[in-house]
């Protein structure tokens, strides 16, 4: 399928989100990929709870890394894979940086900037020359399962913590996915093929089952693995320059 690579990278983002969950953070994570070489050049995990900085979303942590590693000249050759639709702030930042493509799992019904609340990625008031393509719904159920596992816990740092005793963990039921909010029919067919069109029309997921193995795995090594991949990209770049 045309989206085989997209799924592969999104699986990594899901693993990283699971790592976040296991380490007490909101399970939202992302991977930045250099499109021409299909190599990972940065990653990010939500850090708002630990840092008490309301803007340290996963996307921003990844952007920090891109700059730290001096990859900023590659920004317009980069795709972002993130488990949850970027919020309005992140969608705007990504657009202002000139990132070319955004792939995400589930929608973000409260803050989403790639279709849920606003469509920053193709609006006219945020550098319209930088519009990026947006691909929703990749491993959506897996992203939702991780979020649900997080939201049954309470936010002790909030000024008035809400009691969540009566919230039950729902694992088998998923809300319909309103593709048309995020993607035109033409773009859907172009990416997923006309054989999947009924899913667009009936608001169903691409895959009916949840990859439980993926969301239940332990990924304590994932950060090391990603760092190794980023290193190898750096070497790859250096070799290219020395030629």
């Amino acid at each position: 399928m045309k989206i085989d690579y997209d799924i592969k990278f999104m699986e990594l983002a899901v693993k990283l989100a699971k790592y976040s969950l296991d380490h007490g953070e909101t399970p939202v994570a992302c991977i930045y990929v250099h499109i021409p070489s299909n190599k990972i050049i940065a990653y990010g995990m939500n850090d708002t709870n630990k840092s008490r900085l309301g803007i340290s979303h996963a996307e921003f942590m990844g952007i920090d890394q891109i700059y730290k590693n001096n990859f900023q000249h590659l920004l317009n050759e980069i795709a972002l894979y993130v488990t949850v639709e970027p919020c309005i702030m992140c969608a705007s930042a990504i657009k202002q940086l000139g990132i070319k493509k955004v792939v995400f799992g589930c929608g973000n019904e409260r803050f989403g900037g790639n279709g849920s609340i606003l469509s920053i990625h193709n609006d006219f008031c945020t550098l319209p020359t930088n519009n990026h393509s947006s691909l929703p719904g990749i491993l959506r159920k897996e992203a939702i399962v991780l979020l649900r596992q997080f939201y049954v816990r309470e936010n002790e740092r909030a000024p008035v913590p809400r009691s969540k005793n009566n919230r039950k963990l729902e694992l088998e039921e998923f809300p319909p996915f309103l593709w048309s909010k995020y993607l035109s029919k033409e773009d859907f067919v172009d990416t997923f093929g006309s054989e999947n069109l009924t899913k667009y029309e009936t608001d169903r997921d691409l895959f009916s089952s949840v990859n439980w193995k993926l969301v239940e795995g332990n990924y304590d090594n994932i950060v090391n693995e990603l760092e190794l991949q980023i290193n190898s990209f750096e070497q790859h770049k250096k070799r290219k320059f020395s030629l």
Partner: protein
Amino acid sequence: MVKKINNPVKIDYVNCIVEDTLKQIKPSLLTTFSDSNSNDNCNNGLDENQKPLNFIKCLLIQIKSTDTPKFLKFIKEYCSADILSRMPHIKRIKKINKQDLLLLLCSLDFLPNILEFEEFLSKKNLHLAYNKPRNDCNSTLEYIDIPEIYPPSKDICSCWSEIYWPMTWRGNPNDQILNDMEYNMTEIKNNLQLICEKSNMKFKEEEEAKVSSKALPVVTLFVNKKTGEAILSTDERHKSRPIDHSIMCGIRDVCAQLSEDGYLCLDYEVYTTHEPCSMCCMALIHSRISRLFYLKDMPKTGCLKNNYHMHSIKPLNSSYHVFQWVNEKIPLAVPNIDPDVCV
């Protein structure tokens, strides 16, 4: 909280201007309705833009009018956490005839159906007599839809009362918001003057420099309401990244010196020279600020007054108030910026 007529602050409620100086950028919620259709007749139905967008489903029961105090006591005692208890304009009771009336018990979020109510009563060992109400076609009517928002005008209020469920007009909510707010005009003016001067200074430096640094003359001030401590930030994109706008830098600076019990920018008010872009407006929502004051419009890229009204978009779980300096006697002019630039 003072009554409107006793408020020493001069407020023009029609145009939303405080002391001829600060113009409120109205929440989007209140601007989605047109205020002009006062001749609208309820029987002809409501204009599309006068219909509420969202509803709350609420449990409805039929009781004897003599039992009213018992039920109101029940609601007061057990339903205080329900959303309906935070909507005092919604009446609880609607008369059917001399003996019977309809009672709006609670939202379905609180008790999902009549069975749960039943169970609740027996758990608390309460004995309250009620019936399931019936509609005109004589089928049972267990719940009804109540408009989620407060009616935007008196006329709409009486229409909604007829169509949906009785409610009382308690005055324009925005008047109340403006009336309840504190305005330390001297402090507000001083803070805006400070960023205005800094901005013009930056612009001048830039003009006189031999080599342009490409710095944008955008300046922001974060002021802690409790301690008075102020943090000044400037646009840093020329030195670092295209997203290091003055507001983003300010939020990071506030966080860097946050006290042990501080929560994001909850205690801060923000003063900024130019209307912020989509990223910065949203970053301020995430940071939980309470108020923002600004000087100059950015008609293409600004996202408070000119696009989106982002400080008050409904589904976002938090909002802040926005005022623009409009005093022509004390003009606070800041440099023009390329209109396509996001600040």
